């Protein structure tokens, strides 16, 4: 056997790497906080539910007792607000949506800075650099990392291939074409042609993609721009689609009603969160007759909405080190690979490339379409839902109000946008 110097050097380097890695693995002790207790404030959406379902694996791995406080999204925030305003340590770790409340919570000092943790206290297989840069940037305020990404999501157009085929229709290829497609569906089938969110606080999640694809912006030169020609076109198209082709009572619709309607086979097109994919496909009824695409491009191009839930540690936590262990476990490549197989799109490229995930995608064309649509969102999407100001949640209410007034026919587009602009300019000035 003949060994060159280069071979010896390579072997030495490889051994050194193995030694360093195994040493680091030995150094990182998952049981370091065994016996401690942390409280997790969870959103009971599919992602939060999966975390809760797998919580016993975390407890077994770390010996940390996890107490779960789970609510629907809005109630979860209200609970958090009560706890944080009282500067209480009742909550150690919580789910958060940086695109919505990130700026507000960061300014209020509610987030613990995760930068030192992710730099110095991770297990060797954590792969802290594996998250998409855009998602990490979205959760970074004033140089401090406030949350670690748990998923990637955005609204997608789910449509019934069997119904489209029966009616001789192709998937809409342009934003304006949506109304034509919905009109033809209305003539051809008894199903609701088009469904999307109408409930005031929830509607901006779906509407923002219409706004951006139409070429509109929420703020132009520091002023609210709901009355720009593009924004008015977007408002008109969105409300007309729902008013003329949406389900009855759509003004109260959020994701729960949309998922129930589409899963029951009662709508032909549904513009709904990618996160609902698992629930929609759960029964198996829609697995064979659904296709998924991003919202078609409009005059302003294609700017789909993309966001991601993150996990944060409370600035008031009495146990941030143990909380970090939970956060690290929940956002680890291993857990995110498991969640991906349940329809939670992974925020890590490596997970998306894994053999198991690919095999899962190949089992059904609709899964592959869901993944491809999300890849487009990740590449070209924007996370601007509502106004990029501290009072973002309140800004969403005014946008939703304009949509609601138009849906009910209580205001014309000019009246609705003018009312929204007045309220939103006050909000911009206040912040």
């Amino acid at each position, binding site marked *: 056997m003949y060994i060159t110097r280069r071979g010896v050097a390579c072997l030495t380097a490889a051994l050194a790497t193995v030694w360093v890695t195994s040493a680091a693995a030995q150094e990182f002790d998952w049981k370091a906080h065994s016996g401690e207790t942390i409280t997790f404030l969870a959103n009971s959406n599919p992602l939060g539910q999966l975390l809760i379902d797998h919580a016993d694996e975390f407890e077994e791995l770390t010996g940390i007792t996890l107490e779960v406080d789970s609510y629907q999204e*809005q109630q979860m925030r209200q609970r958090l607000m009560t706890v944080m305003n009282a500067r209480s340590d009742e909550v150690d770790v919580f789910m958060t949506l940086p695109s919505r409340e990130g700026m507000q919570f960061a300014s209020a000092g509610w987030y613990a800075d995760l930068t030192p943790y992710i730099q110095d206290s991770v297990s060797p297989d954590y792969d802290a650099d594996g998250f998409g840069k855009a998602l990490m940037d979205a959760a970074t305020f004033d140089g401090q990392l406030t949350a670690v990404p748990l998923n990637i999501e955005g609204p997608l157009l789910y449509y019934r291939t069997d119904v489209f085929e029966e009616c001789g229709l192709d998937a809409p290829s342009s934003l304006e074409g949506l109304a034509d497609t919905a009109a033809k569906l209305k003539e051809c089938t008894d199903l609701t042609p088009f469904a999307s969110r109408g409930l005031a*606080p929830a509607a901006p999640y779906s509407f923002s993609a219409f706004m951006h694809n139409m070429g509109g912006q929420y703020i132009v030169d520091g002023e609210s721009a709901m009355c720009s020609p593009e924004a008015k076109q977007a408002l008109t198209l969105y409300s007309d689609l729902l008013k003329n082709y949406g389900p*009855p009572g759509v003004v109260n619709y959020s994701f729960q009603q949309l998922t129930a309607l589409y899963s029951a086979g009662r709508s032909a097109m549904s513009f709904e969160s990618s996160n609902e994919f698992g629930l929609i496909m759960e029964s198996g009824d829609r697995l064979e007759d659904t296709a998924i695409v991003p919202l078609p491009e409009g005059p302003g191009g294609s700017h789909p909405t993309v966001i991601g839930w993150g996990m944060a540690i409370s600035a008031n936590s009495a146990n941030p080190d143990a909380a970090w262990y939970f956060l690290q476990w929940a956002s680890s490549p291993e857990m995110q690979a498991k969640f991906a197989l349940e329809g939670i799109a992974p925020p890590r490229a490596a997970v998306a490339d894994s053999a198991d995930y690919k095999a899962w995608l190949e089992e059904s064309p609709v899964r592959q379409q869901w993944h491809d649509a999300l890849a487009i969102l990740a590449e070209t999407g924007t996370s601007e839902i509502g106004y990029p100001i501290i009072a973002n949640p309140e800004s969403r209410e005014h946008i939703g109000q304009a949509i609601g007034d138009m849906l009910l026919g209580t205001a014309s587009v000019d009246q609705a946008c003018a009312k929204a602009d007045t309220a939103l300019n006050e909000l911009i000035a206040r912040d």
Partner: protein
Amino acid sequence: MRVEQNHRGQMAAMSMPALVFTVGMIAFPFLYTIWMSFQTYSSTGQVTGWGGDNYLRMAVDGQFWNGIWITLYLYVLSLVMQLVLGTGLALLLFRAKRLPGIVRSLFISPFMMPPVVAGMMWLVILDPSLGAANWILTSLGLPPSAWLASPVLVVPTLAMIDTWQWTPYVALIVLGGLQSLPPSVYEAAEIDGASRRAVFFRITLPLLLPTLVTAMILRSVDLLRFFDLIYITTQGGPSNHSMTLNIYGFRVGFEFFQLGYAGALMVTLSVLVLGAVMAFNRLRAAVEW
């Protein structure tokens, strides 16, 4: 003298837990809310100023006046329906003395259900696309309704749900009143040959007035601060058509971080509730027999 002083001391000591509880759990939060209502807050919950700005803002806030209107509309509609139907149900239960216990229990079961559960149940029943209510209407050849999604029907629908839930409670109170009425008055009316209608309007109803006013006070407190059912079913929608003052205050405070303004709204609501209770108390004193 010394014994009496000791007794007073003991009485004071024994009242202390109740006093501490009242001050700690009722007076302190209320006073704190009043204090907050004179502060202005930024969108991040930081205090930015002091004064009466929140009350001035309220005067020109269309949403506030809309909240007052919706609160009163819902209150009057629900209270009238519950008093009329509750009295009717009480008379039915009073006369049907041999009604089996299980039937009586079924009559009063709705108000034992948590409002959140009742809200979820009605949300499903009234869903315009998938709910049973519209299925029944269309099966009978009637047009479907938007129920909670209709700006016109949302308040009557909420009043209907609340009436379904709380009528039995009013009926129980009225039933207690009916059982305490003196039989001699009815015997005299019977001897005088009074009709059943005359007996009800000239004897039963006037004698029941103090009981009815008590029921009105109890329901008024709940109805003026109507919250849980609306929060579960409409969250104030569609487009603010069911946004009561309580829901509005909650959203301003807990969703938009405007704690001072939310405090001012809640103080105003408390004054409204207190005013209604005081007015009904006076009424009760006037109709006492």
